[in-house]
């Protein structure tokens, strides 16, 4: 690979030497110009990319120093490679003569090169620069990028030799491409921060998350904790003569406790010393509990507040193998108000908690996830529906074969456009009036939008039709020259208007970049006026000269709609979702807007392409019958495009559901919205549920949609 030369192939030393000093020069001189230029360009680009990368990722970046270091390392590895190649050449010449062995020798050389690099890389680096200097580059990448580049360099020297000897032959360039790719690979390894050792040594960290995500079904159900409490009564303080409540007897088959004595004194804290004077010691025995379980002793004061007694004995007791226990506890410190009357009866509680018990009820998380996935599917459906509604008519004006034949004399087109401006102005005024009587945009937004739409479409198309006919009439009935002048004037006005805004845009968008908005604003009137005059004149002259020629208005509409679709389609739905969530707030509506926009553009393109590929024969046949354009579309185009349309629509629905899971991540509603919150709260079980539901939905949908589509394609 480094040098494919065998003894039979002629080689021009002169060209090799030329390429040794300037990469690609030998090839260039040998009339393989494109090859020479690409080699030089590749070498320079890869060299600079390497220098930039090793400097960029270093601890103390210094582009100038890293350039010097990289060149030094490059020369070192090149020298090493030249030495190895020379020795291989000598061995091939004098020791090993069979071609097959020479191939092995070539592979061996490559291996030796790699091993040598690994062995001497430290030495290479220390000879190239001091320890301080080496901190300005990313050393590992520097070595491998330089070594690969050196190999590329040597390859092109050998290639120049062959090119010089046989200028007509173009030997394979796969070796050069492979070496160039090797340089890119070593840079890419660095730039993407690949760290294999970390990936291997720390992979176990993933277990914590993965285990819960992969099998999260425990989180889909609710669990309850059940507690069994057994009580006994104690009287304290114990006035003279009091006997306390009766001692409880064991009840067979149930948990029981018994306390003796049932009457005693409360522990008291000495306020001066803070020490606790223990009350009467109680002996508590019990039975009928779960062997091995832990029970808790609680004390409930006479007014019914339970608490955990402290400093008076063990409160956590382990049940023995017979299900019983015995423990001692002093009556804890309880404040008895001086106003308390009558016997003060306390309750001692022994509480045994069972583990979590499966209830069979769905958990809150799974319910949320199910709601989310339903929302996601619906977002996908609604977006597909609205997308189809808009993309369907749109696709016809974006189909080249339907639009190319649509043309009209320029005078008609200009007439229509000129009349369109006042018509739209009128429609806008009318809409404003209606909006006022309806109580403003806040009050009746949908009604106003509808009225506006109807007015603008209606008045606009009426106006443009009138204008077109008027210009046509003038041109045909009055005189051609008048028509020409009129068309020129009309196009001049349109051009002037367009030029005004182009000048404005140029001033604000281009002039303002170097000098700033304030300075640009001073010269803005000049640009506006200049633009208006320039484009006005162009319009005037063009309109005058071409007034009676056919103007392919169809291609203009086609180009505009295609451009629009390409722009909308190339903006990711994620971005549209962010726009949508700012527009209508977080939630599924924002996601629906985002997907609808993208669907219109994507389906519009797919639809219009399938319109473009239909059989033209039926269109021709229907035109010949005297059918109108719309009738031709309905009877000749639509029947032909129905199968691909259905297929694309289902495909798009499939994509939309998949995308709406992602769109939720940026606030577009649906399951993604919940999923990202669970991930951020480290609720990996719940996140796992969401991931499972997404997987199930997408897989099902994939199966269903491919099944349906098979029937239509």
């Amino acid at each position, binding site marked *: 690979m480094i040098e494919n030369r065998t003894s039979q192939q002629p080689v021009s030393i002169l060209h090799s030497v030329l390429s040794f000093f300037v990469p690609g020069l030998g090839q260039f001189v040998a009339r393989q110009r494109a090859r020479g230029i690409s080699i030089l360009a590749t070498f320079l680009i890869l060299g600079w990319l390497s220098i930039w990368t090793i400097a960029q990722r270093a601890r103390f970046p210094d582009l100038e120093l890293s350039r010097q270091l990289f060149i030094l390392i490059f020369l070192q590895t090149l020298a090493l490679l030249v030495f190895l190649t020379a020795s291989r050449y000598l061995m091939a010449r004098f020791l090993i003569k069979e071609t097959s062995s020479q191939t092995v020798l070539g592979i061996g050389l490559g291996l030796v090169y790699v091993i040598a690099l690994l062995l001497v890389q430290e030495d290479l680096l220390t000879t190239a620069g001091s320890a301080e200097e080496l901190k300005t580059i990313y050393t590992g990448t520097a070595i491998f990028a330089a070594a690969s580049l050196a190999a590329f360099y040597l390859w092109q020297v050998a290639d120049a030799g062959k090119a010089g000897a046989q200028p007509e032959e173009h030997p394979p360039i796969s070796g050069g491409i492979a070496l160039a790719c090797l340089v890119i690979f070593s840079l890419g390894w660095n730039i993407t921060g690949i760290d294999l050792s970390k990936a291997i040594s720390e992979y176990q960290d993933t277990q914590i998350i993965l285990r819960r995500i992969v099998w999260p079904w425990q989180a889909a159900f609710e669990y309850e904790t059940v507690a069994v409490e057994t009580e006994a009564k104690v009287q304290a303080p114990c006035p003279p003569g009091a006997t306390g409540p009766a001692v409880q007897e064991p009840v067979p088959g149930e948990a029981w406790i018994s306390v003796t004595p049932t009457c005693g004194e409360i522990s008291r804290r000495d306020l001066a010393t803070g020490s606790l004077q223990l009350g009467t010691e109680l002996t508590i025995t019990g039975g009928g509990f779960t062997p091995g379980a832990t029970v808790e002793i609680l004390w409930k004061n006479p007014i019914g507040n339970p608490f955990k007694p402290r400093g008076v004995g063990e409160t956590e007791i382990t049940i023995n193998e017979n299900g019983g226990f015995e423990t001692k506890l002093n009556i804890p410190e309880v404040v008895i108000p001086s106003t308390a009357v009558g016997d003060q009866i306390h309750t001692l509680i022994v509480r045994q908690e069972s583990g979590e018990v499966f209830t069979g009820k769905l958990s809150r998380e799974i319910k949320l996830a199910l709601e989310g996935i339903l929302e996601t599917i619906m977002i996908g459906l609604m977006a597909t529906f609205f997308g189809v509604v808009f993309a369907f008519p749109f696709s016809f004006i974006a189909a080249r074969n339907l639009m190319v034949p649509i043309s009209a004399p320029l005078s008609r087109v200009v007439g229509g456009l000129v009349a369109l401006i006042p018509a739209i102005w009128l429609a806008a005024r009318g809409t404003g009036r209606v909006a006022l009587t309806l109580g403003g945009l806040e009050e009746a937004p949908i009604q106003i939008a509808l009225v506006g739409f109807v007015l603008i479409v209606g008045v606009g198309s009426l106006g443009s039709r009138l204008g077109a006919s008027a210009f046509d009439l003038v041109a045909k009935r009055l005189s051609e020259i008048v028509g020409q002048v009129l068309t020129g004037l009309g196009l001049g006005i349109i051009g002037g208007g367009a030029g005004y805004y182009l000048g404005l845009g140029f001033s604000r968008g281009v002039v303002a970049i170097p000098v700033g908005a304030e300075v640009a604003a001073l010269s803005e009137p000049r640009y506006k006026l200049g633009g208006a005059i320039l484009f006005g004149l162009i319009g005037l002259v063009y309109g005058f000269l071409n007034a009676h020629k056919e103007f392919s208005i169809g291609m203009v509409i086609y180009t505009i709609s295609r451009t629009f679709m390409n722009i909308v389609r190339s903006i990711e739905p994620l971005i549209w979702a962010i726009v949508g969530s700012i527009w209508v707030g977080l939630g599924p509506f924002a996601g629906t807007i985002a997907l609808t926009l993208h669907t219109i553009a994507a389906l519009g393109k797919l639809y219009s392409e399938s319109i473009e590929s239909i059989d033209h*024969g039926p269109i*021709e*046949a229907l035109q010949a*019958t*005297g*059918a*109108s354009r719309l009738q031709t579309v309905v009877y000749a185009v639509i*029947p032909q495009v129905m*199968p691909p349309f259905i297929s694309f629509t289902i495909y798009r629905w499939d994509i939309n559901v998949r995308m709406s899971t992602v769109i939720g991540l940026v606030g577009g509603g649906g399951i993604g919205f919940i999923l990202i919150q669970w991930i951020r709260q480290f609720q990996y079980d719940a996140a796992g549920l969401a991931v499972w539901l997404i997987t199930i939905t997408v897989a099902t949908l994939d199966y269903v949609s491919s099944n349906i589509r098979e029937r239509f394609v």
Partner: protein
Amino acid sequence: MLQVEHLTMVYPNGTVALRDVSFTVEDGEFLVIIGLSGSGKSTLLRCINRLIEPTEGRIVWNGVDITAADQADLRRIRREIGMVFQHFNLVKRSLVLTNVLSGRLGYIPPVWSLINRFPREDREKAFQVLERVGIPDKAFSRADALSGGQQQRVGIARALMQDPKMILADEPVASLDPVLAHSILGTLERLNQEDGITILCSLHFLDLVQRYATKVIGLRDGRLVFQGDAEDIRQMTDERFKEIYGEEAERLSA
């Protein structure tokens, strides 16, 4: 009467398809246009109903200048001129009935036609026309389920729905076998003789030309090189035919 005067057609890529072609067709004529492929036959036929816009020249039909008609007039003219195509140009996925009814689109109000509603008399007419071309039982088949000959009959039925005064047939039998060719041309001939429909038809085979034509014009490289009536054709030798037609001319029976 159809008058073609100095008709010239240059395609946007510079190909000259017709050069100064002039001829006249009386009503009720069966005019056959002969010529090699690429000699301008299809272009000539399509210029007559302006599926292709001629570059120069005039086409006058019964005193109406077709070349000067605007879009609305053109549609009214077109609906009286039926057209039959070499590849039938049917909508394959639609029913035969729909294909036939679509010949009526030039007559009915657009709004109704957009939702596939046709007047009752049009539907009845469609069945009559299908009966006339010999496939009364195929109305509810899909067009692509029919054989080539049957599809061409649907094509003729569609043209008949227009109540045409003239039918332009562009190589109507070139995609069919000899037996079917006679049967299709026979159908056209019957329309010509029974209904007095003028037929303009481009054909390949000398014996078909001799059998059906009442008048013949020959085109070569876009120029009119031959004009003759039925008698001229019947006396025409194979050699003379080859002269006009080029070496590839042949008889169907050969």
